[in-house]
């Protein structure tokens, strides 16, 4: 496989590993990562070139830190830097020498026969062509990975459906996401129409199946400036082409969210059944009209750190007010109601759960994110009452809940009530719950109290050099199986513009990738960037990301963090939902544990089969 090594155009690296073993996937990933250390593929290959310094703080310099000391400084860069410098200077030449591009397969199963290599070369040539089509010449190999972010951000919520996929502007999007079926049929593209991209998606599928034919799974491709990540989930293939410098792990996490969003609309069971029945089914037929939901999700993923942290941020609220509102929700119940959720300004205000449903599992943050995204993408312009089937993929990927969505404060539409039932026919009963909630909230004047609530400012912490932070606690009481949450102040100056916000988020993503690196996880990282200094710290009790002004000293930062932790402790009743309240809507608990049996039936009787 490794013929003609280190040719001019060694810009392509394909990372392949054995299919993940079901019983022990972490070990497999670790092995993969370790095997890759010998290669020249690093998540941040250009790190050395920007003027920031990375330094791991010895753990014992913080008085109460339990972090392990990281004695090594930085990563072995020398090899990758030279490689990449060659790439930069030669990159234009590469465009003309497509056939010389190398497929660099890290294959533990060393048996390679000639036949496969030949067809491999063919696929590589195809891929290289496709990649040139996709990425064009607009590759910016030399700039800092962390500064590159701001330049290519498209204006949010613009319609990208009609974009010309041959135009430079299309190629320069920071992050492309494609979804296709195993038969190579386009299902979704973030930018441009799926039809126009069918040949590109065909090449993607060719790659996936070629590697599959060798009993392997393609995971990612690294080229100068771009990372291509593949995710196979059942009959769906998801591909991300990113120039955002995020790690493969982070990008795969985002693809997983896209998959979950599709599952939330169709359920996993239906998708499997459809493709079992008809391999070349055009899934767009069932997803028609949901492009906005997927677009919205991808915009959120780029702009909201909740996806990165896999946690939910709730609206800061005096605990007495939150308790009052929770009690109102607790009282307005009807049989088969399982979740009552109140959302204000797209943030969770309170969530009340049915006792038996939640007994053996808790609601995953990802499910909440999908619900919040659905609400954001639904028609918020009117005072309607929406009733729609929705699946919570992490709760149960094969069943539907029925969601009642209604705004309580038309025409402003900031406070949204979401009631989830397991009964398809329960609309009128659930709508009656809303009337009760509305009346009670009117009586207690809750809406006007909610309207006054805002996100908090970092200045309230009272630490002068602290610009922003994200804090995710792990120390929740065991007896209250609780939603994973995080808290974070508003992004204020100098992070008020969209570009600067994105830049800070990219810095956080970088810190997050170092902390959660599969090969060399860190407990503590102190990072002096160009315009700010960041400190990330993970303990058994919390995960914390802080951003300071650039001139802060290490000692100052540590004192500031101590103060910040003290402040959070003092405010935690306001910043977090501490004890999610519950109600009981099923007198007979066996009747509707985990979504209920009626749903199981429903997923087999939702009409999809009849459409084939």
């Amino acid at each position, binding site marked *: 496989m490794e013929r003609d090594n280190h040719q001019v155009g060694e810009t392509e690296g394909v990372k392949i590993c054995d299919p993940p073993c079901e019983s022990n996937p972490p070990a497999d990933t670790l092995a993969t990562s370790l095997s890759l250390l010998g290669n020249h593929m690093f998540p941040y290959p250009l790190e050395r070139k920007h003027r920031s310094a990375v330094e791991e703080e010895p753990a014992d310099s913080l008085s109460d830190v339990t972090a392990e000391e990281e004695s090594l400084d930085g990563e072995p860069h020398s090899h990758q830097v030279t490689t990449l410098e060659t790439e930069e200077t030669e990159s234009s030449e590469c465009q003309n020498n497509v056939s010389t591009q190398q497929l660099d397969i890290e294959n533990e199963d060393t048996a390679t026969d000639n036949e496969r290599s030949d067809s491999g070369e063919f696929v590589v040539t195809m891929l290289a062509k496709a990649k040139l089509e996709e990425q064009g010449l607009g590759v910016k190999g030399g700039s800092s990975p962390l500064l590159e972010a701001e330049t290519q951000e498209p204006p949010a919520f613009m319609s990208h459906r009609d974009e010309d996929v041959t135009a430079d502007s299309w190629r320069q999007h920071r992050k492309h996401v494609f979804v296709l079926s195993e038969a190579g049929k386009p299902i979704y593209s973030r930018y441009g129409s799926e039809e126009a991209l069918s040949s590109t998606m065909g090449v993607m599928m060719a790659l996936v199946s070629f590697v599959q034919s060798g009993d392997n799974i393609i995971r990612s491709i690294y080229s100068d400036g771009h990372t291509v990540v593949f995710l196979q989930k059942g009959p769906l293939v998801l591909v991300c082409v990113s120039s955002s410098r995020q790690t493969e792990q982070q990008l795969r996490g985002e693809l997983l969210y896209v998959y979950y969003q599709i599952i939330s609309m169709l359920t996993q069971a239906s998708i499997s059944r459809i493709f079992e029945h008809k391999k070349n089914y055009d899934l767009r*037929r069932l997803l028609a009209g949901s492009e906005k939901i997927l677009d919205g999700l991808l915009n959120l993923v780029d702009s909201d750190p909740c996806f990165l942290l896999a946690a939910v941020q709730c609206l800061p609220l005096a605990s007495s007010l939150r308790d009052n509102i929770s009690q109102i929700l607790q009282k307005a119940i009807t049989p088969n109601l399982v979740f009552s959720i109140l959302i204000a300004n797209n943030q969770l205000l309170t969530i009340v759960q049915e006792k038996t449903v939640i007994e053996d599992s808790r609601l995953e943050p990802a499910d909440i994110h999908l619900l919040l995204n659905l609400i954001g993408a639904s028609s918020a*312009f009117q005072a309607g009452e*929406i009733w*729609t089937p929705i699946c919570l993929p992490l709760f149960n990927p094969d069943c539907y809940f029925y*969601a009642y969505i209604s705004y309580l404060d038309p025409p402003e539409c900031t406070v949204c009530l979401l009631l989830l039932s397991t009964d398809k026919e329960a609309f009128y009963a659930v*709508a009656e719950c809303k009337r009760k909630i509305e009346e009670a909230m009117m009586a207690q004047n809750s809406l006007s109290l909610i309207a006054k609530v805002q996100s908090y400012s970092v200045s309230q912490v009272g630490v002068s050099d602290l610009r922003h932070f994200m804090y995710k606690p792990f120390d929740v009481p065991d007896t209250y199986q609780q939603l994973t949450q995080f808290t974070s102040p508003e992004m204020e100056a100098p992070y008020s513009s969209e570009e600067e916000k994105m830049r800070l988020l990219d810095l956080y993503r970088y810190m997050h990738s170092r902390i959660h690196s599969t090969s060399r996880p860190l407990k503590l990282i102190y990072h002096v960037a160009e315009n700010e200094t960041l400190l990330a710290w993970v303990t058994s009790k919390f995960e914390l990301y802080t951003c300071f002004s650039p001139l802060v000293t290490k000692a100052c930062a540590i004192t500031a963090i101590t103060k910040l932790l003290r402040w959070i402790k003092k405010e935690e009743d306001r910043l977090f939902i501490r004890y999610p309240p519950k109600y009981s809507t099923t007198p007979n608990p066996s009747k509707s544990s985990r979504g209920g049996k009626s749903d199981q039936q429903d997923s087999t009787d*939702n*009409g999809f089969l009849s459409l084939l």
Partner: protein
Amino acid sequence: MSERNTLLLEKQAKNGTSKYMLERCASVNDYYDIAFKVMLLGDSSVGKTCVLVRFKDGAFLGGNFIATVGIDFRNKVVDVDNLKVKLQIWDTAGQERFRSVTHAYYRDAQALLLLYDITSKMSFDNIRAWLTEIHEYAQKDVVIMLLGNKADVAAERVVKTEDGERLAKEYGVPFMETSAKTGVNVELAFLAIAKELKHRATQQQNEPKFQIHDYIEAQKHKSSCCGHM
């Protein structure tokens, strides 16, 4: 509130109806005498939500297409012969994946507005399938009306007015072409439905039957000669 209730009772006594009456009003500013459920049906993107928003708020939702999620329940109170008629309108998603939830609420509907897009042959061809579905799931005596929407886009028309009329005649349902953009016939469609339902609900034995077809024809002519619709 009590005054309103007395009024309601008086009217109830006068009209001799109780079947469709609701015992109490939803709220003070949302007062009504009688309520009906109406459902908007048709393929995806024929303009169901736009027709509803035009009727409810007198506005046109231009620009980006936002697909309805599931079914969307909204109210509008209209005056029919001095009676407050509340139309509870189900705006449905046209997409196939929401069919099962739409079916569950068909039988509640007393009237169905079935829409196609005059610029989409496909949406017109699917009307027969929709009517089959209606006969399967809806009440037997449901009021059906066929609407050819987007009548303002004359340049892209592919379904002739006569084709719509012929189909409507075949199934014995009233028909008109509407435009959510300009508002043509939108109000009329809902008002005709409201009148028909009100007459059905309050009709006395000896009273003549309300002729929805004649009413629509008369109103159509009236509005076209005045030219304000």
